[in-house]
């Protein structure tokens, strides 16, 4: 940390700034650090052999991956459209994309459940299609897509915006049609942001609890299982599961930082 102040004798201003910001850094690392180092290895080993834990972790991972896939397939065109075109109502669409970040989590769950209520047109349509929301993987995936989506779209959009429009124009002038231009110029230059966006979407989906618990207490995702263990058995018994989920999250997180760093260098 010393090198913050190298090269200058009188950088007291930045030293003060740094001292002032220590409490927040502690607020983040102390609880997490303590928790990860809390449970002993025996507890951790026993926990990961628990079939309920394994199935909850895997359920979290694959429902989240499904949400990422949906966001990628349907979100990429939207992100590109928002990055490249100006049109009436664009601000409104951007607003809609950001909405899920603002909505309280249990409210999201209630809203999505409400959609499937039998006394509505959509609910009846879903029913005739045989689609159940309450207590199903479909419901979990819908909720996770809802919360993860803005992260993918906004990050991918920033990636597309960072590709100079001029390069696309030049590609067109060299004979490439719009989709050829997208594939040969835009995509290779923006893919890093797209991957970054997918990881952020995945991380956000894996961490969701409040919306999922409304839509599906069972089958249990990892955050729901942690909550259940906490309410049923107390702090000590929920920690080992929490640590395992943190490991998964941290792995995603390291991936994300890796991509974010590569991009700036």
């Amino acid at each position: 940390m010393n090198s913050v102040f190298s090269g200058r004798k009188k950088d007291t201003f930045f030293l003060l700034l740094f001292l002032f910001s220590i409490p927040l850094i502690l607020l983040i690392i102390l609880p997490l650090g303590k928790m990860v180092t809390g449970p002993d290895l025996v507890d951790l080993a026993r926990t990961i052999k628990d079939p309920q834990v394994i199935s909850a972790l895997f359920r979290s991972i694959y429902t989240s991956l499904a949400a990422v896939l949906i966001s990628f397939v349907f979100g990429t065109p939207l992100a590109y459209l928002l990055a490249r075109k100006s049109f009436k109502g664009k601000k409104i669409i951007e607003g809609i994309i950001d909405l899920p970040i603002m909505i309280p989590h249990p409210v999201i769950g209630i809203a999505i459940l409400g959609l499937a209520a039998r006394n509505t047109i959509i609910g009846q349509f879903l029913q005739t299609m045989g689609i159940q929301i309450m207590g199903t993987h479909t419901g979990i995936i819908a909720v996770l897509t809802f919360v993860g989506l803005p992260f993918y779209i906004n990050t991918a959009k920033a990636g597309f915006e960072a590709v100079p429009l001029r390069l696309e124009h030049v590609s067109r002038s060299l004979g490439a049609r719009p989709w050829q231009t997208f594939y040969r110029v835009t995509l290779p230059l923006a893919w890093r942001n797209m991957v970054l966006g997918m990881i952020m979407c995945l991380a956000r989906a894996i961490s969701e609890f409040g919306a999922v618990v409304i839509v599906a207490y069972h089958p249990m995702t990892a955050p729901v299982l942690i909550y259940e263990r906490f309410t049923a058995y107390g702090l000590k018994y929920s920690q080992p599961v929490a640590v395992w989920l943190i490991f998964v999250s941290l792995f995603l997180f390291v991936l994300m930082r890796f991509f974010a760093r590569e991009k700036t260098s």
Partner: protein
Amino acid sequence: MLKVSNFHLNLPEFSLKNINLEIKKGEFFALIGPTGSGKSLLLEAIMGIIPSNSDKNRGKIYLHDRDITSLPPEARGLGIVYQDSALFPHLTALQNITFGLKYHKVNMDKARKQLDFLVQKLGIGHLLDRYPPTLSGGEKQRVALARVLILNPQAILLDEPLSALDPAFQEEIRELLKSLHQELKITFVMVSHNFPEVLYLAGSGAIIHQGKIVQQGKIQHIFHHPNSCFVANFVGIKNVFPARINANKAFTNGVEIKLSPESGRQNHNYLSIRPEEIILLSPDRARDNSVDNVFTGYITGISCQGFYFNVFVDVQGVKFQAIWSQKDMADQGLNQGSKVTIGFRSKAVHTFRDKG
């Protein structure tokens, strides 16, 4: 060959108004104007790159009598080179150059020959495997030119191709453009705000000001015969004076200037003389018969511009500006305040009408 007819383009904050241009095959044509005059916008409109917030009514653009107004850029058969080269950073120089080949029906043998020719002509053989971020400004422009040339477009549009380069590279790329034009007879349309550069490269051109074409024709003609004070100042005619014109004489601030016999001057109210036309006369040559306007004045300012001097001479309150060499000045031992005899041919005096 390339014809723009009654072209309009309205953007929320700017518009091109009633543009008419006709560019001949093999010509080096320049679109000249100050920053913000709309010249790059016009160039992109010719290329088919129209901002999405523009309106629809916009005249016609023809290429070889084919109406290309509503064709997308990829179907126009034109090429464009930008000041920043706009090379694809994720592709090598070679991949950049061959980028467009797959979208054109080209014989691969022919393309390979063309590639070899261009690589040699542009001197980029050693760069082919490198990525654009590792290239210098001049190298980037060479690659960008190769990328366009390999497709044999019907015309190449150049958007200030020299302005982002260091002076040494500017000269290098300028020479290259000159030789490409002379040897390959390519039609070039160049946007520029640098008059010396235009004068060196272009044969004809148009001056754009606030989205309108204010003068067009042969570059040399524009350079010597501006039709407004704006153009006169823009092309660097330092001597622009309001004048009362009476047949073959003009009066500016009481000074009588002889004009060459010419008709159609009834409404003219300005005269202009290029500074390099104003020559320093030695007292003994004061009656040089080729120079029919001779005045005596005093030097009020001298500024060194490298290998020549800008000299300001006051003749009865009219401030002439001349460009003289170091040698001229030294021969007569001239300084601020010196009395000098200056002269210019009546043919060098141009008159025009400016409404402003």
